């Protein structure tokens, strides 16, 4: 303290100025560090009133403490703790800020989605926002959607598909044989015989068919000439057709004559019908006559029997005692 008066006044001013600046720097640092700490505490949700939500899943893989629970893409809570339940399930304890808790209802669904790329996501879906609010400490089961779990199935299917393709495209496969046949067919189509050669398969057969066609053509030409001649002979001035017309006229006359003859026959038939009617009546009279003859014969028979009884002509008559 004795040294202070010995120092020049300028130095005192300098030292007080330096101390002020140093104090300012210290204050600035305290403010920065203190402000950062308060901001980080705010960012970590230390000052927020929260409620708890327990999400239960078979597997907590990909879930880390601090991870967000999102609703419509907005974070409404974060994982504060992950623990193993006595049943062996993963229990994720979420901190839900009270101001965001109204988005979660008793009917809300919670999902855990694991994508092929990126981090795991926890999502909440509330279908009916008028349902009762989710109570503090509620436990819900997580629905797990795991894209990577589908990979083994996908790989197995792809492997099967590749094997099938391999079998299809192998050197001795049916497809290869079919393609070979198609090539042979197209070669034949482009060859000498063309489509006929491809269909018949052999050049000899093709030649035979072509010869047959040629012959058929010449035959048709002959038939054509023949038809012309036949036309002349049939429809010509002295052809068959004219004779046929005359014959038809004659036939018509014959038919009219036949019609007259038939009328006559018809009259004869009527006569015959009347004759047969008479014969029928005669037949009825014959019936009566027959009845009379039968009765006369019965009477004669009866008479003979009477005579036989009264005058026995039978020689070996035997008397039988009762």
């Amino acid at each position, binding site marked *: 303290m004795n040294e202070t008066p010995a120092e020049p006044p300028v130095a005192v001013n300098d030292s007080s100025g330096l*101390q002020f600046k140093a104090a300012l*720097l*210290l204050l600035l640092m305290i403010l*920065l560090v203190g402000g950062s700490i308060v901001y980080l505490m*705010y*960012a*970590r949700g230390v000052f927020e009133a929260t409620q708890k939500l327990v999400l239960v899943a078979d597997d907590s893989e990909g879930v880390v403490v*601090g991870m967000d629970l999102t609703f419509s893409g907005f974070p409404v809570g974060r994982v504060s703790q992950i623990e193993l339940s006595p049943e062996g399930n993963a229990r994720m304890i979420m901190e839900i800020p009270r101001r965001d808790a109204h988005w979660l209802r008793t009917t809300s669904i919670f999902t855990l989605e694991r994508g092929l790329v990126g981090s795991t996501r926890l999502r909440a879906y509330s279908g009916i926002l008028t349902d009762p609010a989710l109570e503090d400490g509620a436990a819900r089961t997580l629905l797990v959607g795991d894209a990577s779990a589908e990979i083994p199935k996908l790989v197995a299917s792809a492997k099967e598909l590749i094997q099938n393709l391999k079998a299809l495209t192998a050197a001795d496969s049916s497809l290869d044989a079919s393609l070979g046949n198609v090539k042979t067919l197209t070669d034949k189509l482009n060859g000498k015989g063309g489509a006929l050669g491809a269909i018949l398969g052999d050049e000899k057969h093709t030649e035979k068919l072509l010869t047959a066609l040629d012959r058929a053509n010449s035959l048709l030409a002959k038939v054509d000439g023949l038809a012309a001649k036949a036309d002349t002979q049939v429809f010509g001035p002295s052809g068959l057709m004219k004779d046929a017309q005359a014959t038809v006229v004659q036939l018509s006359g014959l038919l009219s004559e036949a019609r007259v003859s038939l009328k006559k026959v018809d009259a004869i038939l009527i006569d015959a019908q009347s004759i047969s009617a008479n014969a029928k009546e005669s037949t009825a009279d014959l019936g009566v006559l027959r009845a009379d003859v039968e009765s006369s014969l019965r009477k004669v028979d009866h008479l003979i029997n009477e005579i036989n009884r009264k005058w026995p002509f039978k020689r070996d008559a035997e008397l039988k005692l009762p």
Partner: protein
Amino acid sequence: MDPQASLSGRVFDKAGAGLRHLRRLNQLTLGWLARAGRTLHFAAMMLSLAMSPSTYRRDNRDAIAKQLVTGLGANLLWFTVLCALVSVVLIRIVVVTALGYGLSKFALEMVVRVLVLELIPITAAVFVALRCTLPDGVELAEMRRRGELQSLQGQAIEPMQREVLPRVMAGVFSVLMLVAVSCVMSLGLAYLNIYGFTPWGFGGYTRVVGQVFSPAVSIILVMKTLAFSLAVSLIPMASAVYDSVDNVLQGRSKAARELASMVRLFSVILLLEVASLMFNYY
């Protein structure tokens, strides 16, 4: 000449060379351990002096204030400007790359992790070491060589309190201050780069920052920054106070000694960084 005698002579020569090598290794190890022990002793002494009320007497306070203001005043502005420029470039690169890959939601987290947690603390430590504490150490060594520290003792002034401790405190404070200012500035620049001049991204931004700065990560950042500041301040001063003048007499030049001190300091900084990375990501 007897062949057996020559063979045994060669064997003895080889054994002697190996023994000399071992002796040299032993000396190096002992020297390294002695230096580490002296540095730790110096750190303990500085800590006890910093806790001592007599250190904060008016005359010492003036010395501390002078070192704080001169040490930091020269560095704060330049470092902040340089750090802002580098931060803007890095943030832009990360954001554009993340957008290109459709990973924009990870951009902010990556910016915070890369810049605030890793790059800024080590850059600030190296900057303070090169601009402040290594020159201070050299100055102190020169004062010691000139006998100024002994003359202070003759004036009933404790040189550790008057000359050494203020420089150590200035180094520690400079690193802490630069890290605090640069981290806050980088966080602000990251927000502006990603969201622009709008307050509507603040909620999402705060949430991501909160997720990155978990308690473990925050503690590691604080410990790492403290360790950097102590290493940067203590190692050059300890070298200046304890390295014997004999070294110079043995043929080591002043520049070589300063270089050795700098390499030692950077090795320690590197080890601290590796340790913090291991704690953070394993």
